[in-house]
C-alpha cells in the first residue's frame, strides 16, 4: 500500500486509451465498473477533443458481481461491434475487472467476430500508464503488421505519438517535414493518426523513427526483429539533438539533401546580450525520462543554465536518467512520489523548475518559476497555436517557453537596485505576468510541504539569524532569497557558527560568488 496525493501516471488502461483514441477505426472494449468513464474527460476536456474516445465500458455494478459479468462483457462487446463497425477491437480489463477474472480476451475470442480482436494483459497493480500505452501499441503491431516488400523510395514509420501526449500533434508535423526535406517519406505514423489497416502496412518502411520511447519502444524493437527495420535512438528535442538526429537519418539513408536552418532562432536568441541573465541560473528538471534527458542538454549547452538536480517518474527510464545525471555530476531522483519531488526542490532552492504540471504546482507554492517540459499536462499545455517541442521550431518554442516565467534581463537588475521601492518591489513578480505573479518565498516555505512533515525545514534549527542579518536578507529579491538563506546557513554550519550576523551573510555571499 502506498500513500499517494497526486500521481504522475494513470493506470495502464488509460495508456491503452491513449493509443485507441489517437488511432482511427479501432475500438476498445473495457471491462470496468461504473465511474471509470471519468477517463473520457481527459481527452474531451484536457485535450479538447471533439469526439468521445472510442471506448465502451461494461459499467458493472455491485449487483452484477453475483450474477453474470461475463455475459455483460459479451453483450457490450457485441453492441460496440454493431454500433461502431471498427476495423479491429482491443479488449481488456481495468483494475477492478482484473480482480474478478472474467478473461475479456478469452470471452471475445469465443464470439466469432469477423475482425481482429486483440486481447490486452495490463497488470493494474504493478504497472502504469506509459507501460499500458507501450504494451498496447506493441500488441496491435504484433497482431496486425505483416511482412511486406519495402517501398521503392526510402520511407520510414514514425512511432510513439498518442492522444493526450505532450505536444505530439505538432511534433509529428515538424518531424514529418524535416524528414521530407531530407528526402524521406513517412509510410505510417502510429499510433496517432493510424487506422488498423495502416498498421498492417508498417512492414514496408525501411526504418522507424522512434519519437517517444515511453510509448513506442517495444513496437520499435519488434519491428527491428521482425521486419529488419532499424530505429532511431536520438530524440530530436533541442538544437543539438536535432542535429544529431539529422546525422542519424543521413547515416541510415545516405541522404545528402541540403537543409535550410534559417528559421532556427534559438541559437542567436541564447547568444544575444539580453540572454546574459540566463547564464548560470540553477534549474531543477523533472518529468518523463525522454523529456528530462533532452531538457538537461538544452539547459546546460543551449541556454547556459546550471542543472542543479534532475530526475524522472517513470522507472522504465531509471537507468538512463541515472547515467545522464552522473554526466552532470548529480544524483538522479527516480520517484513517482510527488512529496519527494517537492522536498527535493525545497532543499535545492533552484531559480527555476523545468517539470510537469505537478512541478508547476510546487513552483507556485514555493515562489519558484516553472516551465512545463513533459506530461502529465493540463488543458493550458494544449495550445491552439503550432508549438512543437521537436526539430528546429521546437527549439525556438522551448526557448520562449522557458524564459517566459523568469524576471527578465534589466528588470532583474532593477529589482536588485530598488529593493524596497513601494511600487517596484520584487513580490510583485515579473512585470509581464500581470496578476499571475509568483508569491514571495518566505511565508510559503515556513508552512512546510503540501503535507507538512514533522520536520519540514531544511534550515538548521541551531543557527540563529540576528535581526540585522534577517532584515538584510529580506532586501534580497525573492527569486534568490531562498538560495541566499540556504547558502548562508550552510556556510555558518561549516564554520561552526551559532548565529548569523550581517558579516556572516556577506562572508557567505563572497564565499559562494561565481
Amino acid at each position: 500500500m502506498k500513500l499517494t496525493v497526486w500521481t504522475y501516471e494513470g493506470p495502464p488502461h488509460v495508456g491503452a486509451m491513449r493509443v485507441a483514441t489517437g488511432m482511427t477505426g479501432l475500438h476498445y472494449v473495457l471491462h470496468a465498473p461504473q465511474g471509470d468513464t471519468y477517463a473520457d474527460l481527459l481527452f474531451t476536456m484536457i485535450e479538447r477533443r471533439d469526439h468521445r474516445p472510442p471506448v465502451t465500458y461494461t459499467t458493472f455494478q455491485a449487483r452484477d458481481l453475483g450474477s453474470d459479468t461475463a455475459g455483460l462483457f459479451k453483450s457490450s462487446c457485441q453492441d460496440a461491434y454493431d454500433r461502431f463497425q471498427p476495423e479491429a477491437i482491443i479488449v481488456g480489463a481495468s483494475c477492478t475487472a482484473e480482480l474478478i477474472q472474467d478473461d475479456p480476451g478469452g470471452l471475445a475470442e469465443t464470439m466469432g467476430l469477423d475482425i481482429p480482436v486483440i486481447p490486452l494483459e495490463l497488470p493494474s497493480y504493478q504497472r502504469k500508464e506509459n507501460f499500458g500505452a507501450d504494451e498496447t501499441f506493441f500488441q496491435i503491431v504484433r497482431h496486425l503488421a505483416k511482412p511486406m516488400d519495402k517501398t521503392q523510395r526510402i520511407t520510414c514509420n514514425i512511432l510513439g505519438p498518442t492522444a493526450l501526449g505532450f505536444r505530439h500533434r505538432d511534433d509529428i508535423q515538424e518531424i514529418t517535414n524535416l524528414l521530407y526535406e531530407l528526402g524521406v517519406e513517412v509510410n505510417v505514423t502510429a499510433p496517432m493518426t493510424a487506422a488498423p489497416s495502416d498498421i498492417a502496412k508498417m512492414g514496408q518502411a525501411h526504418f522507424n523513427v522512434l519519437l517517444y520511447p515511453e510509448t513506442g519502444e517495444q513496437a520499435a524493437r519488434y519491428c527491428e526483429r521482425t521486419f529488419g527495420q532499424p530505429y532511431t535512438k536520438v530524440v530530436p528535442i533541442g538544437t543539438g539533438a536535432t542535429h544529431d538526429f539529422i546525422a542519424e537519418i543521413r547515416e541510415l539513408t545516405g541522404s545528402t539533401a541540403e537543409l535550410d536552418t534559417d528559421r532556427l532562432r534559438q541559437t542567436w536568441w541564447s547568444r544575444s546580450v539580453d540572454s546574459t541573465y540566463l547564464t548560470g541560473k540553477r534549474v531543477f528538471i523533472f518529468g518523463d525520462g525522454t523529456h528530462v534527458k533532452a531538457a538537461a542538454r538544452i539547459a546546460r549547452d543551449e541556454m547556459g543554465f546550471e542543472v542543479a538536480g534532475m530526475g524522472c517518474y517513470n522507472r522504465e527510464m531509471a537507468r538512463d536518467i541515472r547515467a545522464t545525471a552522473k554526466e552532470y555530476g548529480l544524483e538522479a531522483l527516480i520517484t513517482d512520489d510527488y512529496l519527494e519531488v517537492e522536498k527535493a526542490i525545497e532543499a535545492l532552492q533552484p531559480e527555476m523548475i523545468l517539470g510537469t504540471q505537478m512541478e508547476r504546482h510546487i513552483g507556485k507554492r514555493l515562489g519558484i518559476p516553472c516551465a512545463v517540459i513533459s506530461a502529465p499536462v493540463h488543458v493550458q499545455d494544449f495550445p491552439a497555436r503550432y508549438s512543437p517541442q521537436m526539430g528546429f521550431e521546437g527549439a525556438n518554442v522551448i526557448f520562449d517557453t522557458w524564459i517566459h516565467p523568469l524576471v527578465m534581463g534589466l528588470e532583474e537588475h532593477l529589482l536588485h537596485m530598488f529593493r524596497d521601492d513601494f511600487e517596484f518591489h520584487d513580490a510583485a513578480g515579473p512585470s509581464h505576468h500581470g496578476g499571475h505573479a509568483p508569491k514571495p518565498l518566505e511565508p510559503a516555505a515556513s508552512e512546510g510541504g503540501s503535507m507538512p512533515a514533522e520536520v519540514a525545514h531544511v534550515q538548521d534549527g541551531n543557527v540563529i539569524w540576528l535581526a540585522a542579518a534577517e532584515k538584510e536578507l529580506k532586501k534580497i529579491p525573492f527569486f534568490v532569497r531562498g538560495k541566499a538563506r540556504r547558502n548562508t546557513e550552510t556556510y555558518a554550519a561549516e564554520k561552526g557558527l551559532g548565529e548569523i550576523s550581517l558579516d556572516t551573510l556577506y562572508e557567505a555571499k563572497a564565499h559562494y560568488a561565481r
Partner: protein
Amino acid sequence: MTDQMTPPPALGCRSAPVLKQRGQREVFCGLTGIIWLHRKIQDAFFLVVGSRTCAHLLQSAAGVMIFAEPRFGTAILEESDLAGLNDAHAELDRTVQQLLARRPDIRQLFLVGSCPSEVIKLDLNRAAERLTQEFAPKVRVLEYSGSGIETTFTQGEDACLASMVPVLPKTDARELMVVGALPDVVEDQMLGLLEDLGIGPVTVLPARNIDSEMGVGPNTMFALTQPFLGDTHAALERRGATHIAAPFPFGEEGTTAWLAAIAKEFGVSDELFNKVTEAPRRRARQAIAQASEPLNAKSVFFFPDSQLEIPLARFLTRECGMSAVEVGSPYIHDALHGPDLDLLPAGPQISEGQDVDLQLDRCREARPDLTVCGLGLANPLEAEGLSTKWAIELVFTPVHFYEQAGDLASLFARPLRRKTILGVAAE
C-alpha cells in the same frame, strides 16, 4: 404564505412512466464527492483505499490540482496487498499512522472504500473501529464507500454523511437539522433566513469541524438541501428524526417552498414569513428575469449526472420559461424528488439510469437548444452543434437559495449567449 406562488401544474411528473435502461453509464463514481467534502469539513482527511485509477480519477476530476494542500489521498493497493487480507489491514494501519503523523491537524479521518477494496472484501468498518480506538480521543475514524459499483457521483456525499449519523450524540431537543454540504456563503445566508424566521436551534450536517455540538433524536426535524441524500435520509429516520419534505431550494419558487415547509412545521406566522422573504424573493425574481432571457421558450435535455436534474428541470421550466425534453437522473427517490416532480409540468420523458449510446441517439434526434451533461460528452456534443452545460459545474458552484437564483439561471444561459455572440461574430 403561498398566495404569491405560481400554482402547481394540473398534471405533474410524479406519476409519469419512467424510462429505465441499462448499459454504459457516463457518470463519475462516488469518490468524486471528496473534492468538495474535504473543503467543507475542514478538519477531515479522506483516505481512499483503492487503486491508481482512484487516485487518477480524483486528480482529473479536481482539475488536476487546484488545491494547495489537499486533505485527501489514496492508499494505492499493490500486488502484495491483494495476496493476503491480514497483511492489507496491517498495511492500512501503517499508512494511517504515517498520515496522521504528517498531519497533526487532522481530527476526522474517513476511510473511503473503492471498487477494488470492495471486490477483495477489505473490511473498512473493522479497520475504522480499530483505528478509532487507537487514535481516540484525538482523531475519529469513520468509513464509507465511494466505489463505482455502489455509488454514482453525488451518492458519495450521501454515503459520507450517512456514515456520520450513527455517531451523532442523542438529543431530545426540538431542533432543526439542515442536511447537505453547501458553500459557506450560501450556508450563512440560509442560517440568516432561518434565524429571521425565528426558527432554532439549527444545526448543519456536515458541520465545518468535529467540535460543533450537534445531536439527533426523536424531536429532530430535518430538511435536505441536496436531492441526493437518500441514505442519509434513511439513517436519520432510523435515529428517530422526521423529514420535512419539500421541493429543493433552487430558484425563487424552490427556496420559498422549502422555507415555507419548515416555517409551517415550526409554526411561523404568514405575516412574519412574508416579511422575511419578501425582499429576497423580489430580488431573486428580478435576477432570474434578467439572467434567463436567453432561456425563454428554449428546450433542455438532461443526461443523468448528479440527481440535481429533477429540481433543476423544475426551476428551468417554471421560472425560466424553458421546456424539458428529457429529464434523466441516476436514481429517483419518491420521498426526496416527489415534491419537485409534482411541480414539473407533464411532458418530458423522465428517465432513470442510462444506456449512454441510446440516450445520445434520443438527444441527437430531439436536437434540444441546451443539453446538460457530463464532461465526457460536452465537447463532442458541442462539435455536433448542440449547446451544452457541464453538469459538474452545478455541483461546484453556489446555486442554492434566493441570492444565487440569478446565478443559477446564468449558468444555463451562458452557453446560449455564447452561441449567439460567436455566431454573430462569424457572420
